[in-house]
């Protein structure tokens, strides 16, 4: 008979998850699984709602990245109603999105992940927290907290709500940006960029420089990747084409609207969450740790792997350094943290870039829309990966069908592999302690589910 060891809840991640480690009689890892069990039912209860209300409803899928769902939905509904937002509408939406990325990345790296590296994976769990960090490095903690707050406040001051936003509307944006707001945001954006660079330097020195091989090996697997790029292959968060990269680096591109031809969803009998795999590879789907099939990853590392370059100087420089050391694609699971901070720099640079675009203060921010029957797919790159919203409306412009693929859904398959891999690598003769279990969780945290 096999013994099952559970880690519940998986902590310092967004959401509820459980890890079950199955040991055989010899105490070897027979299997390890990540369970994410929550029936939210958004696909159900958006049905019948007026489509223009959807962006304000689906934001509640995630309180950490509500902007991503807000925008993906807004874009999808634009398409349902065939409403084309004016330039300022798009610029304002993207501005909000990249600002949202900023707070998210700070949160994830410093609040959730960093304690493992800076305070040590071992030792008293109570100390291995942002609070512990605050006691160890008060100034750093204080700055981290303030900068995160700054990003959020900038959003709130301009767009009303930072958490569960309301400002993106079908056809564009609810309000234009005033000169005063522009100046205010530019100042804040600069401060954020400065911090982002400092943060990356700090992490490179205090964390990444200390990555040992076993760190890099933790939960590392060989998979494909999915992300968004523009026509020139530049990294994009707000729009662009989806680029799917095979484990060997070969890539193919497709429009988000065609996602169903390239990706497929399925549910494993033992699992309560959908999984997505690359239908385009025509190899089916398998979680066999030795020979996984159809498995790809999304999220920071994936994006940096699939993009050819980043269109902002600082981030581009960091990307080059990163590639020089880890190659492309880089498979190390924990490298996601590094990639995350590079994206943080990109996000801050992009904020300033957008604010520098004269069109952003154009008072025309919204194209009035007419309800109609239609289908619309909207996608954005969320901190947690590629986010796809797919809606169908009836003649009254009310939702008849919805399909949502969130970042974490893409990653559930690879996360299971990583957990299995990590557990197998760490557990010997059933000897299990808190540090070991935490290390297994670290493999999950890297994905920022």
């Amino acid at each position, binding site marked *: 008979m096999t013994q099952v060891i559970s880690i519940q809840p998986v902590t310092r991640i967004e959401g509820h998850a459980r890890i079950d480690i199955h040991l055989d009689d010899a105490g070897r890892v027979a299997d390890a699984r990540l369970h994410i069990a929550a029936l939210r039912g958004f696909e159900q209860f958006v049905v019948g709602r007026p489509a223009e*209300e959807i962006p304000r409803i689906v934001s509640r899928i995630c309180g950490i990245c509500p902007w991503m769902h807000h925008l993906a939905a807004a874009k999808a509904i634009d398409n349902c109603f065939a409403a084309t937002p004016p330039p300022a509408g798009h610029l304002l939406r993207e501005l909000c999105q990249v600002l949202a990325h900023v707070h998210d990345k700070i949160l994830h790296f410093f609040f959730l992940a960093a304690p493992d590296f800076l305070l040590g994976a071992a030792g008293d769990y109570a100390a291995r927290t942002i*609070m512990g960090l605050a006691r160890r490095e008060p100034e750093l903690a204080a700055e981290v907290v303030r900068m995160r707050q700054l990003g959020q*406040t900038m959003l709130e001051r301009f767009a009303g709500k930072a958490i569960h936003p309301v400002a993106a509307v079908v056809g564009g944006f609810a309000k234009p940006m005033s000169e005063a707001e522009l100046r205010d945001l530019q100042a804040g954006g600069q401060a954020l960029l400065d911090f982002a660079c400092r943060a990356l330097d700090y992490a490179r020195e205090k964390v990444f420089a200390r990555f040992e091989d076993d760190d890099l090996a933790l939960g590392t697997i060989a998979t494909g990747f999915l992300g968004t790029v523009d026509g020139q292959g530049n990294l994009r968060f707000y729009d662009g084409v989806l680029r799917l990269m095979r484990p060997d680096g070969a890539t193919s591109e497709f429009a988000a609207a065609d996602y169903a031809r390239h990706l497929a969803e399925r549910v494993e009998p033992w699992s309560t969450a959908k999984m997505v795999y690359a239908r385009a590879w025509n190899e089916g789907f398998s979680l066999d740790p030795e020979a996984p099939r159809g498995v790809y990853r999304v999220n920071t590392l994936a994006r940096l792997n699939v993009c050819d370059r980043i269109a902002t100087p600082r981030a581009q420089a960091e990307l080059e350094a990163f590639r020089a050391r880890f190659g492309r694609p880089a498979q190390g699971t924990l490298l996601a943290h590094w990639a995350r901070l590079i994206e943080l720099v990109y996000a801050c640079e992009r904020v300033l870039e957008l604010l520098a675009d004269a069109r952003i203060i154009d008072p025309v921010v919204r194209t009035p829309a007419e309800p109609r029957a239609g289908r619309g797919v909207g996608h954005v790159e969320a901190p947690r990966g590629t986010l796809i919203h797919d809606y169908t409306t009836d003649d009254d412009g009310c939702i008849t069908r919805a399909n949502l693929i969130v970042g974490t859904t893409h990653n559930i398959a690879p996360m299971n592999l990583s957990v299995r891999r990590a557990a197998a690598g760490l557990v010997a003769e059933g000897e299990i302690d808190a540090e070991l279990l935490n290390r297994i969780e670290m493999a999950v945290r890297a994905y920022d589910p």
Partner: protein
Amino acid sequence: MSDQARPRLSCEWLHACAGCEMALLNCGDRLLGLLDRVSIVHFPLLMDHKYGDRAGAGFDLPRAEIGLVSGGVASREQLALLRTMRESCKTLVAFGTCATHGGIPALRNQWTVDQTLRTVFPEDEGECSSAFDGSSFLDRVYGIDEQVAVDLFLPGCPPRPETIVGVIEALLAGEQPQLTEKSVCEHCPTIRTGKGQRTVRRFLANAEYDPGEPIGSMRCLLEQGLLCMGPVTVGGCGGGETPLCIRARVPCRGCYGPVRRNGNQLLDMLNALASNGIDHRAIVDRRSLLRFSGAHGLLKPPEKRR
């Protein structure tokens, strides 16, 4: 002050989205100050305190003076977790609108669990078959006060960061936190005349206002014919300033729940419209007026006529 000496704070999330927790983290310096005065003993988002090894069967949670619970109750596991929180916490705070009124997830209450499962995991897609067995879910999404005694209701989706810290600080000081009982309109600066449009239109085009002018010069959105839930929604989102959605020039959708805690946003709003001769039948999808307060039996699957 040593961790042991500090009052203990325990945070748990149920059928939630982490937005409330984000709001807490958005408190900046006041958060730092708070962290010096309490000792957090349980907080899945931020620290590695586990439930204990008997997965699902039972939970062992540390005792705490203050417990924050966000999210409604939708599964048996969440229910058990909630009860354990209740037992282990001296003062239990319903944290956010999901906890107080079910929040957006309670929209699910318009359907049965089976209907929802069938939609989310369609049978027709051959490869899709859920490992869910419906029995692990409650028949509907409940506000936590429907299941355990709640000491304080802190609504909001999410609650305003300053308010959250304020409430915790007040509780630490042994005071009764002061939360507004007035509606969103209380601090809405828009111009109201008491005479408005005779119908409500969908929000497909922006409200009328002069972007150059301050919000105080904009006509009340309801009077502009936009369905604004302000009058029937408890205020606080703007913290004494302009309500947040109004800042974005969009109508309130009621995310703080009813202005009277056991009120009915749908009924009150329709009544307000009907009384003012506004054609309430013009509202598409009436029941989404309860989109934030569908717990407490207000949203139900459509009844078969007797």
